């Protein structure tokens, strides 16, 4: 579905823009989250076939004919994993952010430049 | 027996050359005196001086190298002379020229200088190394045009053998290198000024600056030997130049005439010019004479 694909890319770009432009660590993490979500939407929309069902083999789907009725299940499976991993990453980022804030009481990324060159 | 005859011939040859050199120096004194409108000493004054120095009853020596320095110097002079044929075609004056060629003669010149430098160095007087440093530096600079001239004539005659070079110049004045390769002769004659160490290139002995320089501590017989060598070495150098550039000599009077004329060249220039400072002298040799030398090589080799 082209609209969601475009939406996904827009989200991805918004996320990246946020990561590049925002100084606040939390906002950067948010940007990452948005970008990640965009990616997820892109994945799902790539696997979507118009007019088909979700690839869940329950009573609503004729199992013998399922290949023709449901959308490609693999992107859906992938996206589940990707969401989990994205979650883990975001969580870890937030932990880092919290830990950094505890030490310097600042969320500005500019304050964490002691290592360079 | 051959070898003894050879040695006797060599002794005669050296004796003649030394006496001739001493008289030559005497004549130069006379000429200088006449330039100054003086009467001047008798021409045999250098011989008297040598007897006088050898007649000193006591001497001081600074050590073994000091002792050997004048010996080295004399050996250098004698060797330089002996490795050259002096008179073309003469058995007595052919010396030991079969031992080597022009390169040998050029390098044997250093033998005496190096030995003397070491002897004077052990004297411990600061003027000695000062003079030697000047002398060595100047030597390195005038060797350049001279070596270019030598290379030029080596190309010209296709040999470095002095006898062959002289032979090639026989048969008329126009066969002399002076006329066949004038550029090389000019370069060599300018470096002769440096070799003879008359002013403006009298850096080493330089009275009034570093009074007589290296031999300042030399006394008695040491000085006598040095003076003897000065005469012998002067005639050896002149003979070398005569052989290379002025057609050599076939008998003794011609040899004396030619070497005397060559010597007068540096004497006249010496009588007329004041002394250079060291760096002026070095630069002088590294500029015009070197260029003339390079030109002579290029002209002979490539044109």
């Amino acid at each position: 579905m082209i609209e969601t694909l475009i939406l996904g890319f827009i989200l991805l770009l918004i996320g990246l823009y946020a990561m590049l432009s925002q100084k606040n660590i939390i906002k950067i993490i948010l940007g990452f989250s948005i970008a990640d979500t965009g990616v997820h939407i892109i994945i799902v929309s790539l696997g979507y076939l118009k007019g088909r069902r979700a690839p869940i083999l329950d009573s609503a789907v004729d199992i013998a004919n399922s290949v023709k009725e449901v959308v490609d299940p693999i992107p859906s499976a992938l996206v589940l994993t990707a969401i989990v991993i994205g979650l883990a990453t975001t969580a870890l980022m937030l932990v880092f952010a919290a830990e950094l804030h505890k030490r310097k009481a600042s969320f500005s990324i500019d304050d964490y430049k002691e290592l360079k060159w | 027996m051959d070898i003894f005859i050879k040695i006797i011939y060599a002794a005669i040859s050296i004796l003649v050359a030394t006496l001739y050199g001493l008289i030559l120096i005497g004549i130069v004194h006379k000429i200088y005196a006449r330039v100054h409108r003086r009467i001047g000493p008798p021409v045999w004054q250098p011989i008297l001086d040598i007897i006088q120095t050898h007649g000193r009853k006591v001497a001081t020596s600074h050590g073994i190298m000091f002792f050997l320095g004048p010996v080295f110097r004399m050996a250098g002079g004698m060797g330089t002379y002996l490795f050259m044929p002096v008179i073309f075609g003469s058995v007595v004056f052919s010396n030991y020229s079969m031992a080597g060629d022009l390169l040998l003669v050029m390098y044997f010149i250093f033998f005496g200088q190096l030995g003397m430098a070491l002897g004077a160095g052990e004297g411990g007087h600061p003027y000695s190394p000062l003079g030697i440093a000047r002398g060595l530096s100047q030597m390195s600079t005038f060797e350049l045009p001279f070596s270019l001239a030598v290379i030029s004539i080596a190309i010209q005659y296709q040999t470095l053998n002095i006898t062959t070079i002289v032979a090639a110049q026989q048969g008329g004045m126009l066969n002399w290198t002076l006329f066949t390769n004038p550029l090389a002769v000019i370069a060599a004659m300018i470096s002769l000024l440096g070799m003879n160490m008359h002013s403006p290139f009298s850096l080493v002995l330089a009275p009034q600056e570093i009074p007589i320089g290296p031999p300042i501590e030399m006394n008695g017989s040491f000085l006598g030997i040095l003076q003897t060598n000065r005469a012998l070495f002067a005639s050896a150098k002149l003979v070398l130049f005569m052989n290379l550039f002025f057609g050599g000599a076939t008998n003794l009077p011609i040899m004396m005439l030619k070497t005397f004329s060559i010597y007068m060249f540096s004497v006249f220039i010496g009588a007329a010019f004041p002394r250079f400072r060291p760096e002026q002298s070095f630069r002088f040799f590294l500029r015009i004479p070197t260029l003339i030398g390079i030109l002579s090589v290029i002209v002979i080799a490539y044109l």
Partner: protein
Amino acid sequence: MVNPLYLIIISLMAGFVLPLLDRVNRKLSLATFIGVLLANTVITGFWMHGFIQADLGTLSFSTAGFTAPLSINFQLGILEAFVLLAINLIGLLTGIYLLKKFNESPLAGMILFIMVVMGANGLILTRDLFNAFVFMEILSISTIAIITLKRTNESLSSGFKYMLASGIASIFFLLGVVFIYFFSGSLNLDFININFTDYRLIAVYMVAIALLIELKMFPVNGWALDVYESTDAGVATIISVINSTAIAFMFYKIMPLLPSNFLYIFGIIGALTYLMSNLMGLKQENARRLLGYSSIGQMGLLLASIIFTAGLEPVLRIMIVGGFFLNHLIAKTGLFWISGLIKKEKLKDWRVIRSNKSLMIMFGIFIFALSGFPPFAGFWAKWEFVKSLLAGQNILIIALILLGSLFEVIYMFRWFIQTVKGEYKEDELSIMPSGKVILTTLLGTLGFGLGILIMKNYYGFNFLFTLPILSLLFIYLIDFLPAKIKGIMSLGGLAYYGYYLYTLVQFENPIQILFGVIFLVGSGVNLISTLNRSEISKGFYGLLMMMIFSFGSLLIARSYLEFFLSWELMTIASFLLILRGKNAQKASLMYMIFSIAGAYLMMVGFGFAPELIGSSALITGLTYVQLPLISIILLALGFMIKSGVLGVHVWLPEAHAEAEADVSSFISAILLKAGIWGFLLVAISVVWNAPQFDVYYWMGWLGVFTALVGAFLASFQEDAKRLLAYSSMSQVGYIIAAISMLSHLGWVSAFYLSLNHMMFKSALFIAIAGVYYRTHTRNMYEMGGLIKKMPLSFISVLISIIAVSGVPPLSGFGSKWLMYSSFIERGWYLQAAVLFFASAVSFLYLYRLIHTIFLGQAKYEHKDVKEAPVWFIIPQYIFIGAIMVLSTFPNLLIKPLSAMASQYFNSNIVIDGYNVYSSYGHWNGNLIMLVTMGVFIVPLFFLILFIGKITKVKQFNIVYAAERPESPQTTHVAHNMYAHYRKALGGWGKPRIWDFWHGSAEWAHTMGDFFRRIYSGNGQTYLLHIILFFVVVFFLGV
């Protein structure tokens, strides 16, 4: 075969079990932790064993009961087994290394560690792209988490930056994977069989870029540097080694998907990363960050090697990539471990390593391995890589890699020298022997053994070529013995070696015998002077014998590699020997840099050279091949650097001056001849197969000006050894010019001069060593008047300088005569004139040497100076005796030398009795000697007869303008003796070449400093780099 799934399962299970066990006892959990790592290692070890035993091909393991592509499958081939074994072993060792740390910190560390290893294992094994994504995420998340094992501001912020970068990378990777699936319909690498052209390119491009980011390619690697700098040493190890290796392997797996133009660009990026990170490393002062730069550089090299070896046969490819990989693995692991032991940040603080001998040796081993020296794996890899790149005409890549490598050598060795020579006080914190030290030692030994293994098994080197290394090891074992015993043993060993070479190896060419005499007999006599050492002199004889045996190997080398191997071994040994000097830091570094630059030129030169036919020694083999011009130039340049030709001579005076007194003579008299030997070999190949362009004409000019400039520089020195060093440069200039003539007489004079120079320069250096031993100064103006105290040394210096200057009757005149005759005969007239000038200038420094040391005024402080020790006197007089014999009977030498040269040219020199005739002149050395003796004796007798009463006076009994000298210091003319000459030279006397090299060094450092400013420390900037990198590389590729 154990199913690879167990690797994953064991780790995951451990992840769950560990918290439970930890409740019981920390010891138990630690044991389990090690057990898991051990199990991994053992399993992979079994695989490796299996693959070595039998050719099993590649095995595929599927999961969940389906076969691929329906399920995820793991592929296990010998390559995977090899990489897995390597990283699991490092994982195990690093686990042990970190045990103490884990014991003290929360359990999470252990689990994360296992997860990192598991992620890496999975990434290497899996063939499924999405599965790879998962493993990659496991790998990065656990890596980032484990960074916090050391919880400081720096490590946390660097972890966050890492997180941002890897987050973006994972987005790219995920998108790429999905698009690959979208375009090809498969996620399994074995089943993706479409070409990713036009718009589909973006899919694989994104995957590749994600991997490049994770591989920390330039410039998207700022975050990685911060991590390396701030985290714990063990963690840095696993990031640098395990993490990077797994990702590099992943890149290798997706390579078939990438179009070739992109691969080429990625290869260039790899090489560029190597160059840039090493360039930026130049300015680095923090040890850990420096290791980070080096680590990143090595990854770039690895990437480039993976890409550019694609077309090669598998064994060779494994040699190259595996070589680089193992080299990086072992050296970097070792260095990171040591950095953990040192606990100091600044490079110069690493000198505490000197408190632990074995650790110091290991440090050296790692540095040498990383810089690509034999026998370590990196050396072989680099050799083969450059060869294969040349076959593919990838000059740009070679240039990038070799330049990068040069920079790496510079900072690595600067660090090494700073460390082993830095001022170390005993009361500083010292490193106690511990498990970690033993572990490091084990690793270093492993690396060393691996190199030897490659050397013996892959290349099958003759015993003679391993002899340098073996002798080093052997003498290290007996190093506790007193120096004299070791010296005598070395002398005996050397004698047997020479005998063995002479009788059993059978030299093919008499020139080999000549250089054998220079290398081995010369070394043997020089060795006598080392017997003066009274202390134990640890390590000295090992290095010395290593160097001497390398000389021997150079003589008999039959292939380019044998030659180059011996050359590099010689460089190592001589570098370490020079480094032994008291203030040799700068000197040895310069020597190393120039040597390595020369070695790289040679390496490329050999790469261009055609294969040799047959297995005869190089001196025969090279005669029959046509070397291309570029090869001739590069090889000659490489050899000339070692001989210190004008322009690249700046290392020479430093090294000569600062090396230990008895080492300098080896360097000058013999080591420089190794360069001459190489130069001669190249010239031999040109004799019958001359290139179109007469390159030797210009080399002749170079040699001639080397002679002149060397002589001038020598004249202006105050330091006796520097003077002699420049004198060596000058003499080498003569030899180079003479060889370049490519004529019979020219070569005879070059041979003659080589042998002569070996003798008189040895004698001079040993004499000066004796003087230094007694006076403890090298400044000539501080000496003077020593002739009375050291007459024997004086005589040997006197004879030697007469021989150097070429004054008849000594042997030096022979070389001058041959030289000028040959120059004039060859038609090199102006060159001959310059040489004449040079040899006249040489009188300046020779007189200065002998006058300022032995003549003039003796100083008060040298009142009680004695003659040099007998061990210095003996070798001098052996050389002096040889010079005298050869001077009196020059034909002993001229005849065989003429025969040697007439193998290649028509002889135009006639020897008749004692007469030697060239086409221009003649020379009778014997007669000259007799006449000279005659004319010397006559005035001597005359003088003795007439001198009268001699009073032997003392040094102050001089006429001093009716005064007396104030003090010896003010009376001795020595300092700046040729000031007037310098003044006369004006602008020509300025040290322009020196300035040029200084400028280049400064320029390189400034460039490094300039480029590293892009690593601003701001995480967002790094993100921007990534985005820009993504875009720019894409457009470059398209």
